[in-house]
């Protein structure tokens, strides 16, 4: 276990290096969030009571999305790993006496958490200091906050497991960039990153809820703002655990297949 912890620490330290980039990212995210809030504000002014989420919840959802962007995004996958698969350095990884799957998994988790910790506090601070209609709200209750933290970790686990699965798929094709983007585009939409899932029509939502993507950022953010409560909430946590196990299991199985037929490209 210790060696995986060290991979986590290494990636964490590397992530802390880029400060200037963080400042640029912060401004971008604040503007992004604010623009989204402005649109929903106009919508809420006219159709307030008909919306599937109330306005304060939407604002909280948007700011959480910005603050924890790096935890849940699927497009900013670990570039090192993609590079290794493409240029053949993956051969070195195979020489190490570790499980490659666990190594990549822990490395991704480390990279994401280090970046998220750096980025979430400034964004959240600014979001709490925003003027009234765009102000971030506190979690609805202490219990909700606790569950929010738990489901965030579970949701991130699902995201990382999914991304690692995509890395594995890259061994079966020489042009991974295209496949990655196809999957990322679909996931971005299905996980509620473009519009929150409650805004989906009921019939579509029913299908989407069968997919693992609905259990990434959708669950923690909606628990935080009190949009997901009671039975639905506990069922969602249960489904998160289920998908986490399934996706990790699939990844490990796929890795076994990769290991048997691996052809290293490049040198």
């Amino acid at each position, binding site marked *: 276990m210790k060696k995986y912890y060290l991979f986590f620490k290494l990636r964490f330290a590397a992530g802390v290096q880029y400060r*200037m*980039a963080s400042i*640029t990212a912060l*401004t*971008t995210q604040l*503007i*992004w969030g604010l*623009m*989204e809030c*402005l*649109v929903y504000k*106009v*919508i809420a002014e*006219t*159709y307030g009571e*008909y*919306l*599937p989420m109330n306005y304060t919840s939407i604002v909280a959802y948007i700011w959480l999305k910005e603050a924890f962007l790096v935890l849940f995004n699927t497009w900013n996958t670990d570039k090192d790993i993609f590079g290794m698969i493409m240029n053949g350095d993956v051969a070195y990884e195979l020489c190490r006496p570790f499980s490659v799957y666990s190594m990549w998994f822990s490395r991704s988790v480390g990279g994401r958490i280090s970046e998220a910790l750096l980025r979430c506090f400034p964004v959240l601070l600014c979001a709490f200091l925003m003027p009234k209609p765009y102000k971030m709200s506190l979690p609805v209750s202490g219990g909700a906050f606790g569950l929010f933290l738990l489901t965030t970790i579970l949701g991130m686990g699902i995201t990382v497991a999914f991304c690692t699965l995509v890395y594995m798929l890259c061994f079966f*094709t020489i*042009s991974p*960039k*295209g*496949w990655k*983007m*196809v999957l*990322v*585009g*679909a996931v*971005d*939409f299905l996980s509620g990153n*473009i*519009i929150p899932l409650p*805004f*989906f*029509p009921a019939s*579509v939502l029913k299908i989407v809820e069968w997919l693992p993507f609905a259990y990434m950022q959708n669950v923690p953010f909606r628990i935080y703002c009190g949009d997901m409560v009671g039975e639905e909430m506990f069922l969602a946590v249960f489904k998160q655990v289920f998908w986490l196990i399934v996706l990790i299991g699939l990844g490990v199985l796929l890795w076994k297949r990769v290991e048997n037929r691996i052809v290293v490209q490049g040198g």
Partner: protein
Amino acid sequence: MGIKKTVTLYCKYASICVRSLMQYKVSFVLMIVARFIISFGEFLAITFLFSGFEEIKGYTYSDILLCFAVIQISFVLAEVFGEGFQVFSGTVKRGEFDRMLLRPCSLILQVIGTKFEIERTGPLITAGIMLWIGIRSSQIQWNVLTIWTLIAMIVGGTLLFIGLFMLGASFCFYFIEDTSLLNVLTYGAKTHGKYPIDVYGKGIMGFCTYIIPYTLIQYYPLQYLLGKTTQWQFAFYPVGIIIFLIACYMVWRIGVRNYRSCGS
């Protein structure tokens, strides 16, 4: 160098880029499909959002689609032609810009000639669908002036985005590193420009008119196109982008003058 020669040279550059992309056909097709899926998701998002209500600040579903389609087409075209500016920090870092300075040929031509990204055209499929829906269900009176307005919005938008890319590239002369500071202005405008700018309120309206003139290619001509105003002069506002483009070119020129090589 004459215009004819410049155009032939650019076509040569473009054909080389296209041929090099065609070496990886699967990757090429996948990239187009991927970008199409991403943009289609955004289209679906608007559709889903509008399943719950009728209009945003007086704009109907089809109005928004029309607006989004125009911005998307502009942005894609700008990316296809202006990608050379987007990757300019790499050009400077590797010292390739020094080589360009030595050639007896326009610098801008060489910079935009380094990339011709037809694999970015995937979103055009979505934009086509949105434009079709938008035009079919709108009450636009089609005549020479409205057709001109639509085309002027797209061309003006393309030039505006290329101008922003050029501005971003000019910063590379000073910072070397890719600052990505201007991404808010380019990607941000692409994402948030799907709604007419007045939705965002007065402050944003002001910024988008006097600092970066987005309203010239989006809000004002759109008002005329959708028949919300009878002021025909709005149809000619996109022409104003030329002034913005000249301003960007000035910044670029200052950047080139102050350029110090850093590559090896």
